[in-house]
């Protein structure tokens, strides 16, 4: 009987810390420079403002010149990039109005709205996704930027975001 109790107690002690740890540990956005496939939605476990980068680099020290994302050519596509903190501002814009926030992101509010709402995304969905990728950029390092792009030929715009490293 004593042996049985000992076995039960030992098992409980072995299991308890792991399960307790699993329940208590909040997920965080880990550094990941490999899986960079653009997405239209953030992972289900990501909670804006709550989920943080596991180890965040500080935002680059720059003087903000404009809220507009920077246009650049990405292969055969049109693309726009920005630093994480400006991405967060855009996310806030999209929470307020999906119809207008695209003016700062892709320089074309109506097209952005058309593309994103046409994929069934709300302003909250888009904002959550932008915040997720902003945190991914922070987790990856100070030279990482959030970007979004069109398909080749400038069409269609898919309302997907990702990050990439400035060379």
């Amino acid at each position, binding site marked *: 009987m004593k042996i049985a109790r000992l076995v039960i107690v030992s098992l409980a002690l072995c299991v308890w810390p792991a399960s307790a740890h699993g329940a208590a540990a909040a997920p965080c956005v880990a550094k990941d420079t490999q899986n960079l496939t653009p997405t*239209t939605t953030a992972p289900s476990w990501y909670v804006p403002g709550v989920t943080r980068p596991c180890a965040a680099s500080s935002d680059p020290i720059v003087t903000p010149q404009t809220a507009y994302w920077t246009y650049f050519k990405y292969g055969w596509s049109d693309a726009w990039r920005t630093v994480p903190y400006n991405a967060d501002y855009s996310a806030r814009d999209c929470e307020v109005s999906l119809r207008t926030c695209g003016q700062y992101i892709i*320089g074309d509010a109506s097209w952005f709205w058309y593309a994103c709402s046409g994929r069934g995304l709300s302003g909250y969905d888009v904002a959550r996704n932008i915040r997720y990728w902003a945190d991914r950029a922070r987790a990856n390092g100070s030279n990482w930027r959030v970007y979004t792009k069109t*398909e*080749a*030929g*400038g069409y269609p715009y898919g309302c997907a975001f990702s990050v990439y490293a400035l060379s």
Partner: protein
Amino acid sequence: MRIQRLRPELIDVRLGVVAVVLAFAVSPASAAAPPAVLQLDLKVQTLGGRAILGQTPRAVVAALGRPALRTQGLRRARLSYGREDHWAAIVLFRREGSVLRSWSVVLGDRRLREATLGFALQLPPLRLQSRLVSELGMRIVKPYRCRAICRGDVVVPGARVRVGFGRVATEPPYLVLYEAR
């Protein structure tokens, strides 16, 4: 008698007023409407018989008419023809030096008629891909397939031009003719 004499004159005046009102009401709409059926020639990259890539916004408006929507920034511009929920044509411009030039044209009207292929946007995508290769001598650079979106790309041999085709969700199929960078 007096009334009877005046009636035809009144009717004429009323008809005149209606005609003037209708003329003003209809002319802006018809100016912004897309061409009835766009004629595309992929061999020579013309739309409606006119070169469509490498053109200024003014030249594109001269060729296709006034757009329903015009979006212009410092480095990019877009002219859209048709309805907002179903564009017949979208012409994209980018700045080259000090001038905006068209580098991409998106066509989404199923009535689009291509000189060799006929109603290209009514063909099943894989059939369109094979005919672009077999009849226009194009080379596949990205085979048609569906992931987040459905898309394929071919290149025009000897020209700095590519053709993309596909569809997004439940939207009608599209074809995009664009210049190489």
